[in-house]
């Protein structure tokens, strides 16, 4: 299997994360007493590599499997098949005691900044918890010093260390979540919609903070989002998911300048642009209908029921991820003729 490498000077290094044919299928009880279980294919065969210091954007609509993918990479949900190689070693199915030390390097930031913080812990305790778990050898004073340093780094006043999450605004709570993820100086952070719940004026602050931290610590990020404008700003490469399948994977400039998959085109054209002239005159591809139920996905190409260009072949045959250039892969039978 060939997997694309990013263009920007990172080919020489080896990927820190290699995902091959990753599948997450959930068994849903059938309707009726003796009905067999049904399979919900939340993630169905995803491949990609991630390089040090790189940001991969994962975009798609709700229910496309983007959060499940993020959690399956971190083994927070057990994959049903495939491989996740962290620094060359497959971690799918690793026992807890082998995973535990790896978790230092693998962190996550959640969408809802307040709900992901324990309301009964002070923010000092919240940020210190990974240190207490993973570096029990550190003394109390050292932990406190590190927590304060990290708080200052993410833009929180260190003297707020004894306050509780409810005393903070949404943007500040997200900074707490980032401090907790950063305190162990991880190599990879999965950011699951980290700015979707924030006000517009706060989103830019958090996006800038993530980018600064990335440069400072050579972090790799998997940035899960439905907001294609933010993804364009922060990501080097972008993966478009639909019903658990990769529709397109390409580097940032290619995917926005020259999207090849009809779904990518529709997604990009649906994002409103804050400029009345451009917004009112741009060409748009409006999709009809809703996402089909993932319990009964369409035959052949999963996107064909909403695709304005669907032909007979699309119903009978699932297209494969096809490489159209060094930096762009597309899952569509007709990507050449569209």
């Amino acid at each position, binding site marked *: 299997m060939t997997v694309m490498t990013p263009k920007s000077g990172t080919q020489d290094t080896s990927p820190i994360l290699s995902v091959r044919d990753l599948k997450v299928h959930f068994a849903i009880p059938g309707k009726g007493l003796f009905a067999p279980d049904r399979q919900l294919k939340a993630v169905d065969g995803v491949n990609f590599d991630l390089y040090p210091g790189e940001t991969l954007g994962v975009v798609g609509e709700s229910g496309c499997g983007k959060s499940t993918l993020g959690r399956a990479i971190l083994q927070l949900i057990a994959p049903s098949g495939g491989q996740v190689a962290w620094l060359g070693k497959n971690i799918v199915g690793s026992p807890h005691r082998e995973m535990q030390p790896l978790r230092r390097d693998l962190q996550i930031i959640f969408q809802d900044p307040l709900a992901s913080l324990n309301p009964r812990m002070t923010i000092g305790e919240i940020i210190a918890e990974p240190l207490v778990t993973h570096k029990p050898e550190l003394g109390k004073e050292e932990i406190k010093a590190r927590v304060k340093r990290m708080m200052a780094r993410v833009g929180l006043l260190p003297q707020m260390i004894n306050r509780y999450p409810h005393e903070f605004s949404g943007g500040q709570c997200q900074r707490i979540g980032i401090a907790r993820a950063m305190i162990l100086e991880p190599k990879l952070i999965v950011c699951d919609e980290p700015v979707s719940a924030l006000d517009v*004026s706060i989103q830019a602050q958090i996006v800038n903070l993530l980018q600064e931290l990335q440069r400072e610590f050579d972090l790799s990020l998997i940035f899960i989002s439905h907001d294609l404008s933010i993804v364009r700003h922060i990501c080097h490469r972008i993966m478009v998911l639909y019903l658990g399948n990769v529709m397109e994977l390409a580097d940032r400039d290619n995917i926005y300048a020259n999207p090849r998959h009809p779904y990518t085109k529709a997604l990009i054209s*649906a*994002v409103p*642009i804050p*400029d009345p002239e451009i917004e009112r005159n741009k060409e748009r591809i409006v999709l009809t209908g809703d996402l089909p139920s993932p319990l009964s996905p369409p035959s052949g190409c999963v996107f064909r029921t909403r695709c304005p260009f669907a032909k007979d072949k699309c119903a009978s045959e699932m297209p494969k991820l096809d490489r159209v250039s060094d930096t762009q892969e597309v899952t569509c039978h007709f990507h050449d003729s569209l």
Partner: protein
Amino acid sequence: MTTNHILTVENLTTRFQTPDGEVEAVNNVNFHIDPGETLGVVGESGSGKTQIFLSLMGLLAKNGSSSGSVRYKDTEILNLPARELNKIRGVSMSMIFQDPMTSLNPYLKISKQMTEVLVEHRGMSEAEALKRAIAMLDRVGIPGAAQRVHMYPHEFSGGMRQRVMIAMALLCDPEVLIADEPTTALDVTVQAQILDLLRDLQKDFNTATVMITHDLGVVAGLCDRVMVMYGGRVVETGSVRDIYYDSHHPYTEGLLKSMPRIDHANEENLFAIPGQPPNLQNLPTGCAYQERCGYVMERCSKERPPLKAFDQDRASACFREDGQ
């Protein structure tokens, strides 16, 4: 005085009594809407944009009270008793909310929820009302409306539920439609469908529409005029072109600059407005935006800049309008 404004709001102020003291959520707001016009109301959470319209629809929480004047055509409607207000709201003025699941009654079929208003306000028979409900569901693009009208809200997807809400709001041919973040909970492809629908409906029915949103992209595509709110007050008003191409208030300017653009590649850091949105319980003396403003002057912390008109239908609440 004769104007053709369909809705005129003057000096609207809304206060809430809370255990921590009084909060002014809306402060001295003035605006009007004409038939067929779309007004965008933009602001962050807590800016008071929703509370304005809850006030004029008589839907404030129990600890809230409003003063000022709201006229629907020539009728004063602010603080009318519910019995009087019900002749107007839901009939001539309708509202669509952000979360269609919590605004529909989960125990009642769509048919019941839609026909109720027609039977009540229009004196239709159940059968007539059902026919009208089906026609309206069909108009907003719900496939198989005749069957689906007999389903419960949970049997619809998010986008379809929002269509049901829109259909309900349009049942009595309202002259004013207030849409409070109608697409925020939806995916972009579904958002595009709903925005197209609102545009079409406005053409067909010539409804005056208020679009309450934090999404400047949505406003750019849909609205004629824009009102920007900050800390419970209007800080800038103007036509959509004026606001986007010639913004005067530093907050409007900051908001526009801080939005990442899908049509631009940008290698640099995003422009970020520093600081936090203001706490309404503890607004500073002077301008509410002073702590986050790049143009702050000494005067800003002493007195509050009034909303000052400087052109036709243009106003900004900033001392920079005084020419330094």
